[in-house]
């Protein structure tokens, strides 16, 4: 294990992030603040808290918004992180270096996950300005956020390897992740939906992620927490497996 190599990649990736720190942090923070102001404060004041497990609507949507940011930031950070050297040709160095799958995951995926965790933390703090929310299980909340950040950074890494153009990089986050997150209960409780939609929503994997995180905040959710954790963990293991396979065969990496 080339620990120095892993750290070098991690540092280099974080450095790229801090080079454009204002754009990287400001835009998700601004977007999320707008959601909270518009939905949470302006509209949410007219909602009946009994429909949201007794919490205010503003507090109800905070975990959903965190999840929205975590999923899109982790995925796009990691996919761009590995796609850029592929695009510029700089990947030659990674391939010729004594760097294997473990170092690459620690470096690229670790950095991408860290970036989205930094953004999630800033959003949590910003949300507190507008909404009075509390976290019922803080340790589990942090653990779950880290787990989701890591899983989707791994997923983004696979996406970045698969993509052979900028368009493909955008397609999955924009056309799959974002709609599923919106439909997965970021802004509503699935129980509020009429049949068949409340059943259809159960087939949306993001639904479990959002409700898992919501449980750690409010102590109640639409799904059992064990299922949400188990589901996320299985996704993480699957992604690690796929990356290990990619490194073994050299798919999209070696000619």
């Amino acid at each position: 294990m080339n620990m120095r190599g892993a750290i070098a990649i991690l540092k280099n990736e974080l450095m790229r992030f801090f080079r454009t720190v204002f754009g990287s942090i400001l835009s998700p923070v601004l977007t999320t603040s707008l959601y909270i102001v518009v939905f949470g404060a302006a509209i949410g004041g007219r909602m009946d808290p009994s429909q949201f497990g007794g919490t205010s609507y503003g507090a109800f949507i905070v975990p959903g918004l965190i999840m929205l940011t975590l999923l899109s930031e982790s995925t796009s950070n990691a996919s761009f992180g590995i796609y850029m050297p592929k695009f510029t040709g700089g990947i030659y160095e990674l391939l010729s270096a004594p760097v294997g799958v473990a170092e690459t995951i620690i470096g690229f995926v670790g950095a991408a996950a860290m970036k989205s965790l930094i953004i999630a933390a800033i959003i949590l703090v910003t949300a507190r300005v507008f909404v009075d929310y509390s976290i019922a299980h803080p340790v589990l909340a942090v653990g779950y956020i880290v787990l989701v950040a890591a899983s989707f950074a791994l997923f983004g890494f696979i996406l970045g390897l698969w993509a052979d153009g900028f368009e493909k990089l955008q397609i999955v986050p924009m056309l799959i992740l974002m709609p599923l997150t919106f439909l997965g209960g970021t802004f509503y409780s699935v129980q509020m939906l009429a049949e068949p939609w409340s059943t259809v929503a159960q087939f949306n994997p993001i639904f479990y992620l959002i409700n898992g995180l919501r449980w750690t905040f409010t102590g109640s959710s639409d799904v059992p927490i064990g299922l949400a954790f188990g589901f996320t963990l299985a996704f993480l293991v699957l992604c690690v497996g796929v990356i290990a396979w990619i490194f073994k065969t050299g798919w999209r990496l070696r000619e």
Partner: protein
Amino acid sequence: MVTQITDPILDIRGLLKTYANGPTALAGVDLQIRKGEIFALLGPNGAGKTTLIGAVCGLVNPSGGTIEAFGLDIRKHWREVRQRIGLVPQELSFDMFDKVIRQVRYSRGMFGCAPDEGKIEEVLKALSLWDKRDEPIRKLSGGMKRRVMIAKALSHEPDLLFLDEPTAGVDVELRRDMWKQIGALRERGTTIILTTHYIEEAEEMADRVGVINKGQILLTDDKTAIMAKLGRTEAVFELAEPMTELPAALATYPVALEDAGRKLVYRGGDGTGKGKREVAELAQDLTRNGIGYTGLDAHESSLEDIFVGLVKQGEKEMAA
């Protein structure tokens, strides 16, 4: 023409590479590299030079054959082997927005070396990049960018260095400069394998030369041996008076009459200077025998002529 090398630093046997979309880039390459030498791999575009380097450096999965570096199989011992190999690819490819020194540090770290600012400074100074160390790479000239690529490859002090077309697109002055630096690396004991289009480059720098075409090594030998074996001198004397037949006094020279007796052409020598001497003697003999000439055009065949000849010959053999 295969020279057996004992204890090679790089030992390639039967290397094959067929790309998924069809073309065969390497058709059974055998190549042994001596420790400490500069080896120039010559070949036209698409000959397989870059694929060969890629296979050794981990960019290309070979379809068959074996590669050993430092006596270790590069698949089994990839970590140890890669740590000791440096690669400068043909294309400029790095994070253009990053600073020179940070990119070089990054490369050193990636290859598992402990941070060593002294070493980074030494590498940057040797490549005249020290003054530019805090500049973003995109602001550097093309030649300077190429040096950054070399600095990155040298940052982990490799024992074996691959330079893929190191001076492509570099102006003449900078090219000379780069040759000097490559020479200095050899002095320090680094084994260097370079690919080039410029025969001049191989002639100037290499200890040994290999010619590759269509995925096959046509020949490898010491540069001087190739010159001696295949080098020729050609000298054309334009005669004052046309001759119908060769005077007996000139029978010992490899000469012939051409252009209806108006030209006396010498073709001989061996690339080591013998040709030049004979042409000088021939000129004196002509004067002694009262044969006047109005012009003399002499030239040595370069590695380029040899190379072009070999490639053509190889293609003919393959077609047959």
